[in-house]
């Protein structure tokens, strides 16, 4: 099995947003970075599938040189090698740009299975994986909680996946390999890099790939802002009994929701 995992570098969850002067992007020099959390689960799933079925895991990422931080981390956790479409202009790329940047190099590799996280913690488009599947002309399924490989790719091999629907519903779906899956957080237990893994990662190949010509953004960020508070909160005071009485009265008479 030749498995690709697309990973993205995003600001850490603790990061407090600061904007550029024109307010169309974040001040990257102030951010600290980490691997997008759902992508970390996709990587873990790829490593587990390799342990079970053999083959190799190739990490694919798009962005400026800073993204090598998460590529190295993925290699330290056990990925075999990496593709990096490196370009400073792709720091704030939208989902179509990322997919179009990755597609030619990934098509050449002829992967049996491509995994991505279900969405990114930065722009959060929740599109890149599905767009990439269309560009690679392979079937896909999204928000996956379990992966079973049946047979071998190219010889009638298939993948059977458990997809999360809304409201506590799930569904098993089978499709031919090669295929692309977007992975839900929590599908597995993440492993962390060992010292041995970190040392080994230094010798692993990161192939730099040039950006394909003619890429154009599909959407433009006109401005970024902090969310505004939309509501006036009415605070209810008094003893527990008084507050309870007042709350129930307002829910019945004012809001009319009881």
């Amino acid at each position, binding site marked *: 099995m030749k498995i690709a995992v697309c990973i993205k570098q995003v*600001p850490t969850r603790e*990061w*407090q*947003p600061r904007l550029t002067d024109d307010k169309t992007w*974040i001040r990257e020099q102030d951010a600290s970075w980490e691997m997008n959390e759902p992508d970390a689960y996709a990587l873990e799933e790829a490593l587990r599938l390799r342990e079970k079925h053999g083959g190799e895991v190739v990490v694919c990422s798009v962005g400026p040189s800073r993204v090598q931080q998460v590529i190295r981390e993925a290699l330290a956790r056990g990925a075999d090698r990496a593709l990096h479409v490196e370009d400073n202009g792709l720091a704030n790329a939208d*989902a*179509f740009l990322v997919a179009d940047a990755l597609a030619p190099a990934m098509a050449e590799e002829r992967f049996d299975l491509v995994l991505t996280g*279900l969405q990114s*913690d*930065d*722009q*959060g488009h929740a599109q890149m*994986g*599905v*767009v990439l*599947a*269309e560009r690679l002309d392979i*079937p896909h399924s*999204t*928000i996956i909680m379990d992966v079973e490989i049946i047979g071998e790719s190219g010889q009638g091999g298939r993948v059977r996946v458990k*997809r*999360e*629907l*809304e*409201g*506590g*519903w*799930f*569904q*098993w*779906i*089978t*499709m*031919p390999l090669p295929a692309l899956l977007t992975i*839900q*957080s929590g599908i597995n237990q993440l492993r962390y890099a060992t010292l041995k893994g970190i040392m080994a990662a230094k010798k692993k190949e990161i192939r730099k790939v040039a950006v394909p010509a003619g890429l*154009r953004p*599909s*959407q*433009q*960020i*006109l401005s*970024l*802002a*902090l*969310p505004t*508070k939309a*509501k006036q*909160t*009415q*605070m*209810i005071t008094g003893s*527990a*009994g008084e507050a*309870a009485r007042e*709350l129930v009265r307002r*829910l019945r008479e004012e*809001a009319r*929701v*009881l």
Partner: protein
Amino acid sequence: MILVVAEQRDGRLNRATWETIAAAQSLSGSLPITIVVPGASVAGVAEELAGAGVAEVLAAEHPALAQYTPDGWTQALQAIVEQRSPTFVLLPHTYQTRDFAPKLAARLRTPLITDVIAINGSGAHATFARPMFQGKLVADVRPQGDGPFFVSIQVGAYRADAVQKSGTAPVSKVDLVIDESAIRQRPEAPFQEARHAVDLGQAERIVAVGRGIKGQEHLPLAEKLAKAMGAELAASRPICDSGWLPMERQIGSSGQTVAPKLYVALGISGAIQHLVGMKGSRTIVAINKDAEAPIFEVADYGIVGDLFELTPAIVAELEKT
């Protein structure tokens, strides 16, 4: 014109569709609105939508659409979008939309703006507000190119009861040609893991508990309040991660987005992932001992106090009448 893609399963309309129609009406300017309903047997749903104050409802029926697949939906909607050339295509930002809409937009090489919470301006020059960085920021976004522009609307961002209903729109059937051999996904029947599974997305009232409940042994307190209010019980992520309630009752990041009539947050501080999941609720009550808790930012009614005293008092008050 604006094309709204309705979502149904087994002939039951997903109510997020109504919210998307409300968004389409606010976007429309002078553009007429057409609703399309894909499925195998959607006459009932199409009739239901005909009263939505739109120009036309299209029943996109085909036996190959009996069960949802991204390949099937993409084929069906590609044909309709190419034939009708809408300016915008609006969809509810559901798991199903997330599964096929990026493929459809990619195939048509046209932008898709997802998870939209507000529309600025109307008609062809509109721009779209969507959360970024886990809701820490809101971006105002403009699609590039010639369109049609695909836009998915966050569940709860618009109100279903804001739809301006008028008259009865004509319902027509679309003749679809679908190449079934090009549908690569083979779905099995949907199933629920928990025996008493609940669909919080359809609940009218929700009582949600957070870390403030302190221990699993205190959950019956919240259950009593839920029962007295006719509400479903839900929880923030830490409660479900601890296994005190099943994952299907989790609100927020990788859980659910809900927009009930009433949302009562008991001892929930309001982490951003949770707020994203529930802030579209019509009326929000926050009960928390910390007056600075972010949950009060989105609440309509707030009480700063001890939930172990307040909850029984509210239950007693509700049981009086």
